[in-house]
């Protein structure tokens, strides 16, 4: 199997994987970074969201062969000690229920707020509509993104 050089959370990793393996499974199974979650495998739920060169991307659809030389950031890498304003906001608002979708939600929110520092409610609802929360913690996600925006500006 080919070896791929990946740059994840600022560190290089050499991964021996089949070239069509989605980044999601490379992270979870090959590199033991299980914060990125599997929800649908078809780009519909957002549980697997990571940043690729700063953009929120569904890692379940992204083949490992396509992400060499790109900067990949996962939930494990957005801050030390949960200090990112988005994580702080998630904690203050006490967003999670079961928690399974939340890494993906945080990654989507983070990428979005890097682009839009002063979002309206409807900007937030649009930006976050690619992430499903089966527990429906949506009211709190909305509030937490608002709070994070105010922390980041």
């Amino acid at each position: 199997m080919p070896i791929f050089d990946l740059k994840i959370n600022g560190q290089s990793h050499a991964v021996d994987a089949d070239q069509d393996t989605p980044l999601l499974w490379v992270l979870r199974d090959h590199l033991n970074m299980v914060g990125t979650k599997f929800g649908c495998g078809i780009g519909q739920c957002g549980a697997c969201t990571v940043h690729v060169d700063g953009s929120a991307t569904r890692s379940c659809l992204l083949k490992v062969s396509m992400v060499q030389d790109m900067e990949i950031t996962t939930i494990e890498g957005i801050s030390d000690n949960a200090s990112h304003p988005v994580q702080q906001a998630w904690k203050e608002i006490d967003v999670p229920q079961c928690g399974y979708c939340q890494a993906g939600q945080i990654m989507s929110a983070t990428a979005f707020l890097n682009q839009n520092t002063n979002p309206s409610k409807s900007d937030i609802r649009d930006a976050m509509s690619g992430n499903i929360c089966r527990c429906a913690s949506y009211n709190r996600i909305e509030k937490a993104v608002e709070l994070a925006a105010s922390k980041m500006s």
Partner: protein
Amino acid sequence: MKNIGSPSFSRRSFIRTSALAGGGMLIGFNLFQACKPEATPPVDISQLNFNDFNAFIKIADNGMVTIFSPNPEIGQGVKTAMPMLIAEELDVAWENVHVVQGALDTKNFTRQVAGGSQSIRQGWEPLRQTGATARQMLINAAAAKWGVDSSECKTENGVIIHANGDRLGYGEVVKEAAALKVPENITLKDPKDFKIIGTDASNVDVDKIITGKPLFGLDYKEEGMMYAVVLRPPAFGKKIADYDDTDAKAISGVQEVIKFGDKIAVLAKDTWTAMKGRNALKANWTSDAKLENTEEHDKILTDLLNGKEFKTLRADGDVNKAFAAADKIVERTYESPFLPHNCMEPMNFFADVSAEKVRLVGPIQTPERTASRVAELLERDVNDISVEMTRMGGGFGRRLYGDFALEAAEISKIAQKPVQVIYSREDDMSAGIYRPSIKYKISASIKDDKITGYHLKEASVNSNMYGLIPNFFPAGAIENYQVDVASYDSNITTGAWRAPYTNFLSFAEQSFFDEIAEILEEDRIKLRLDLLQKVKGTTDERIQYSPERLEKVIQVAVDKSGWGNAKEGVYQGFSAYYCHNTHVAEVADVVLENDIPVVKKVTCVVDCGIVVNPLGAKNQIEGGVIDGVGHAMYGDFSFKNGEPQDKNFNTYRLIRINETPEVETHFIESDIAPTGLGEPTLPPAGAAVANAIKAAKGIRLYKQPFIKHMKAKAPLG
């Protein structure tokens, strides 16, 4: 329901203590059954054994409190709320309490079988008693040290204080306390004096969740473990005829292909390879059973409703007489589809079956039952089996069924390796244990503008509403009242789905009363309140709900939602319901955007007794309401020749954030023991929305999902 004053209890046989070798006191306790006579907590904290105790409390010599419990979290906040009950009675500051789930590290935690229920309602008294007992032991130890009577001492935030002002921290007397006899009679706090219960506490796992730490079943790994992805029959009623695994085995990385029963597992060192291998399998399927269709179910359930073969679950007075004497009879039918659970974390389970033991790890709500089913399946002694529970990425009833754990055990046994079975979303949605399709026919007889009779008929696939539901509202409120059920046996698997049965029954009933009010030209709220009047003072012990509590939530909802005074363009719908021991009223505010109804807000008033953790409770309520709105609006699931027609979120629609109403929650203040919150706010939501849509568009909805049936009734947009 029992009121709590300051009752006395003996918890002696439920609690044991030890002095820890490294300092501190360890309390082992059971919630619902006495400890075995020989059971003692270990003196080494790394040896916690959950065979003998449900949970442990460690009080360190610096006064810090750690609660060790094997019960994980499913998303309902109990992992936070239950320790709050202990801390309250132990009288320590919440910030000095840490909650540790028996880590999935077999060195420290040899066996984690959760005992009893995780529900706050059942834990309410025993958990508080345990905390109070520990507190009393600490007081007794301090009193002995001072040579005074215990009754002269009180506690405050982890400190024992004698009447003369002497103080000792809990940590300073743990050694002595551990050696004392467990006291017999314990007084619980008066709810007036609660300091922790009723205050906001964040989710105890929040840091781990927001940093992506391994917590869930799918995150569990062991050395040498294989991932197994399974090919199952594509339709209910089909069996395997033959298969060809040549292509699957040719995929590099596929380790093994295992047939078991009508299923074939592909094993690999990573999930993706196992998935590819599974997809490369070729199988032929046969069938000697019926391959069922949704249209057919539709007809069968309609025939059942119109037929005569019913089981009567409750009958008051004589509905036939009331109907014969009626001025008018109103009869309406309500219909629901099957629904999959769609837990965000797809089903999965780890199993390691060896000659000595069988270890199972994963997200499961019923570890004990699963252990015995696995024992039976593998023909092993149940004592060989351990089930370790991980945090669960949602449950909604699906993880009550251990089918996925049984698969893991069977595969591991054949492979003679540790395996983790992983379901893809398609697997999860097509190997479901669904909320069955149900129809209700509700008829009411009207005489002199009053409801004189009420007849509820249920027709369902596979199973019927359970025993207590016929005693919910409007039982007791209408003189002639009858509940009849009938069902059709299908080979499609069905089971409990968040708020079983009432999740749809509430929609039917609360839509029906709304329509009756329209027909009688009566105020919708008054109609409901008048019915409740008749239940007050009832001597019928079967009646499950409290008319006073239901009346109160209705009144507060009217008040808080601005009922009757909605802004121009806002249409409101009302619904109130009792289930899962909790009384709830909801008002949905709907607006029309391009003539399409959009739910903007739901005001939800809840009487769940004492609210232990308002922050967590509101999270449950918001989730339940939005889930109820979402499934009523969009949830649709059908079968063709036994095969589920939706397999992933591209066609199966779950509510998303941009479709979500704001939920405004109000609690009724109460000193009654707490009741559950994971379920009861879901059922009323559908009717509140349907009643608001009626107000907005004049369309009365009888079928879910609304999105489909609104289109059928009137072209939208």
